[in-house]
């Protein structure tokens, strides 16, 4: 098991700086998810931890031991690839036992361990098949089996579910969560899917443009985003952000309506107000903070999504639990749950 530390880690390709000043402590047994838009450097960071990419600057430590210059094989870390990367000329059993084969472990040990892992992952009947005779989900399981059989110090996952269809993705997500509970191993998981991040992580690391934006538990990121990027990246549907004019304890929207914010003493610095779709209440027309017209209404059964237009402010989205009897074209009032509103400064950072 392992405690992983990244100290001021950076990555450059020639003049291009891909990652800057990455400082991160990962506790033993923690499930960390690196999340961010494509090109933010999250996969590069993972490959640097794996040893597949050299680290340009800074230190990478496992249990206090500097690992920068060790080869992948000497780091004792297992990795599950987005493409599965199964060896096509080896059957499932040999694929899973390959690391033990390389380490020259006794064949009998290998056999028991492979059988065990296959049992855990529900692959027992498939051990003599070649990868090409497996479905996507089965291949993904084999790739995971290959990792768990080694009993490594840490697991790395590089977008392992993004090649699966939606239903299978949910199933495998659960499987990974179960696996983490069972093995209690340190896991670092890269994804661009915030649902995976929110459901799996002990802590989420949000990356953008080569910088860490915020590190925190899923709820922390959801409730107290550090800046506008995190606010809009975490949470689905996306947070509504509208320009406002801030003053002592209230903000003024562009159409002139004011929204009182009693618990935001710094509101004067705000230039934007963010509010999640689930934190806006629908009230009778003529009441509430803003007057709106429903443009599109989506009835999902469990929820209702209402896309509204507010004159002088722009489009907003409202999500309410249950079935709300609203039709497109209806006039409504909107009331903000101001205790859940977020204010952002000029530079995008959040006012707390």
């Amino acid at each position, binding site marked *: 098991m392992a405690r992983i530390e990244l100290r001021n880690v950076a990555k450059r390709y020639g003049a291009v700086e891909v990652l800057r000043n990455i400082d991160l402590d990962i506790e033993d047994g923690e499930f960390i998810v690196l999340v961010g838009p494509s090109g933010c450097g999250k996969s590069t960071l993972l490959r640097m931890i794996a040893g597949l990419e050299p680290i340009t600057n800074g230190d990478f430590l496992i249990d206090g031991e500097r690992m920068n210059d060790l080869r992948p094989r000497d780091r004792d870390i297992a990795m599950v*690839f987005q493409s599965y990367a*199964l060896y096509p*000329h080896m059957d499932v059993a040999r694929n899973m036992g390959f690391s033990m084969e390389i380490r020259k472990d006794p064949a009998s040990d290998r056999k028991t361990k492979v059988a065990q892992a296959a049992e855990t992952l529900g692959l027992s009947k498939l051990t003599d098949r070649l990868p090409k005779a497996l479905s996507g989900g089965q291949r993904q399981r084999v790739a995971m089996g290959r990792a768990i059989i080694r009993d490594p110090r840490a697991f790395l996952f590089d977008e392992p579910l993004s090649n699966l269809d939606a239903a299978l993705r949910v199933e495998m997500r659960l499987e990974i969560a179960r696996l983490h509970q069972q093995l209690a191993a340190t896991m670092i998981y890269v994804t661009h899917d915030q649902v995976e991040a929110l459901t799996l992580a002990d802590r989420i690391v949000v990356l953008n443009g080569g910088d860490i934006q915020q590190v925190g538990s899923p709820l922390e990121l959801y409730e107290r985003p550090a800046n506008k990027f995190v606010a809009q990246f975490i949470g689905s549907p996306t947070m509504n952000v509208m320009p406002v004019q801030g003053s002592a304890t209230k903000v003024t929207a562009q159409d002139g309506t004011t929204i009182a914010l009693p618990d935001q003493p710094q509101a004067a610095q705000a230039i934007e107000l963010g509010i999640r779709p689930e934190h806006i209440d629908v009230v009778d027309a003529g009441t509430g903070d803003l007057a709106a017209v429903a443009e599109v209404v989506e009835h999902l059964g469990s929820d209702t999504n209402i896309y509204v237009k507010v004159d002088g402010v722009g489009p907003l989205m409202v999500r309410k639990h249950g079935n709300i009897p609203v039709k497109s074209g209806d006039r409504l009032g909107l009331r903000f749950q101001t205790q859940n509103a977020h204010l952002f400064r000029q530079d995008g950072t959040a006012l707390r």
Partner: protein
Amino acid sequence: MSAIRRRHPALTAGKYAALAFYLLFALFPLYWLLKIAITPDALIFSEGTRLFPSDVTFTNFSTVIFQTDFLAYFGNSLIVSLGTAFLTTMFAAGAGYAFSRFVFKGKRIIIAVMLITQMFPLLMIIAPIYKIVADLGLLNSLTSLIIVYTAFNIPFATFLMQSFFDGIPKDLEDAAMMDGCTRFQALRKVVFPLTLPGLGATLGFVFTAAWSELLFALMLISKNDAMTFPVGLLTFVSKFSVDWGQMMAAGVLALVPSCLFFIFIQRYLVQGLTSGAVKG
């Protein structure tokens, strides 16, 4: 309810007619080779251009095998072609892997130079090559042919191998290295088995090229005991006559190793060995 849309019968007939025509066109010279090889000498000219001779004989084959130097030529060709094929493939595999996987200084220049070597007509450089080989004291040796053929085949074979390595996902090597392999072990245990079709194709290509090469063999070899097969064939042309029957019989025999070689490697040429490695 048939899911298969039937084409118009005339279209199907036309397709097969075209294929048949092509086959006929491509295979007819081979047929003619065989036909003349089994025609008795007396009938070659007297019967005119008949599609099949009225009498069949195998004496041409036995004469070629037992009464000429054919077997020696054949052996020489085999040594040169196999030597060239293995040497070239070995170098090309190494170079192709490097081009495919590594970033290094001068890579583009090396590739450009290799391309340029393929642009010269061989005739232009035959004199300098002769001079070099002669100065090295390698005239009339099979070694000289192996060296020259290897040099000429490496660029193309390297590009061929590079494209095969490009087709093998880099993730596989990364995965192997995560599983505890060194880079070389990853190459040997994962990449190499997947490159067998590529190695087979390259071996086959270079073997055939070396097997049928005439120009350099003619220039660099003049002694009978070092002659390769294509040069040896010319000995059937004497000052006053051409021994057509024996020449064709020798030609038929020369096809045998090429055919055997391709039968041997064709299972490695089958596509789809890498399927199942990555998504899709």
